[in-house]
């Protein structure tokens, strides 16, 4: 597949309303966001601020009431259900708080699974999965089952699974939530490195410390972006100059 030149993920004036009339809940109100290759955008905010809705929309699990969601240039609203499902399988990887690895499969089988579901021959899927595990530094865990791994190791495997093959968009939902602070930092460092190596990432977290790894941090409240750090400019890097 030829990589799409523009943003890997783009939200244009997206609103999502649940229910109608008096009881309508405005989960998101006119949010715009773009994430290009090599970029990590973090979304923070209290519970109920619209973070989960945003991830569901970005992953094609939900549709906006108003506005457009584009993944690799394709407007999800114009695609059939089957086409959205295909796009989700081929282009989008997920990293969750609780890792979501399949307990009955080894690490390499877990990573190969999305490729196999997409029709990649078993041998090739396994080879790509082994490569993906090597890229996250846990090649030696290939034959291990999730129960025999630490939380940090499971999350590394989950990151490998999210970015195996041609996947270029990773949606991370509190990926450090179940980990101690140092392991959480190692996972963020890895996620950052994988994104630097050629992926786009959207990170939802309530921990500012982990959001600090992003290029841009958006703070949601009541479905609106109330704070936005924008992208780092060179002029801002005062601390770096003092080094």
């Amino acid at each position, binding site marked *: 597949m030829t990589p799409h030149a523009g943003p890997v993920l783009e939200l244009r004036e997206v609103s999502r309303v649940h229910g109608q009339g008096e009881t309508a809940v405005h989960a998101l109100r006119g949010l715009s966001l773009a994430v290009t290759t090599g970029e990590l955008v973090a979304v923070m905010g209290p519970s109920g601020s619209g973070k989960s809705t945003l991830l569901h929309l970005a992953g094609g699990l939900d549709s906006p009431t108003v506005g457009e969601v584009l993944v690799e240039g394709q407007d999800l609203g114009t695609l059939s259900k089957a086409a959205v499902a295909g796009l989700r399988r081929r282009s989008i990887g997920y990293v969750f708080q609780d890792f979501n690895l399949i307990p009955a499969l080894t690490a390499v089988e877990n990573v190969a699974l999305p490729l196999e579901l997409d029709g990649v021959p078993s041998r090739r899927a396994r080879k790509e999965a082994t490569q993906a595990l090597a890229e996250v530094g846990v090649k030696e865990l290939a034959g291990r089952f999730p129960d025999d791994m630490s939380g940090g190791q499971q999350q590394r495997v989950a990151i490998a699974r999210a970015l195996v093959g041609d996947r270029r968009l990773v949606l991370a939902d509190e990926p450090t939530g179940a980990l101690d602070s140092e392991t959480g930092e190692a996972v963020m460092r890895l996620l950052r490195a994988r994104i630097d190596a050629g992926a786009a990432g959207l990170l939802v977290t309530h921990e500012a410390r982990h959001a*600090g790894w992003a290029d841009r941090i958006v703070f949601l409240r009541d479905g609106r972006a109330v704070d936005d*750090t924008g992208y780092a400019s060179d002029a801002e890097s005062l601390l770096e100059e003092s*080094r």
Partner: protein
Amino acid sequence: MSIRHGLLALLDEGPKYGYQLRQEFERATGATWPLNVGQVYTTLTRLERDGLVRGEGSDESGRVGYALTDEGRTELHRWFATPISRETRPRDELAIKLALATTVPGVDVTAIVQGQRTSTLRTLRELTRLKKAAAEDDLPWLLVLDSMIFQAEAEVRWLDHCESRLARSSRSTAPARPSAENRPADDHTATDHEGVRR
């Protein structure tokens, strides 16, 4: 904390010159605390007066070396063994600013909270970049960076908490009013006054 204890700690390894102490102090604290040579020599003079260090004479280029005395070593270990009291740290200007903002009519406290949070998140991002760039074995620098990162994180959490508290307070004390911006100034004072009195 004082520069005194920093210098005593560096001298624990062995005698050093003033310029050397300055360099090592900055390296250990990751240049977050720049010292000028004057501060280093003034502090060394006082430490010598108090018997905590002693001058070791000068070398051929006139540079004076300093060494830790037994009293100095005792003072250093006393410092390491004593927890730092939060009370002795400078007052938190931000907390005072927010507290006062709620009492001044016409000030948009929520805007202050949001502006501060954006600024602190930017700082956090910069600190994280420095951490990403730091050498893995540069333990002193990583510890200092982590300290700044955790403090920035705590400030963001506190600001978020303030924002929720402000939202709740304006809902419970001003139910019929359309929005904070449109409120007449005297009403605003009354609301905030009530909030502060509690």
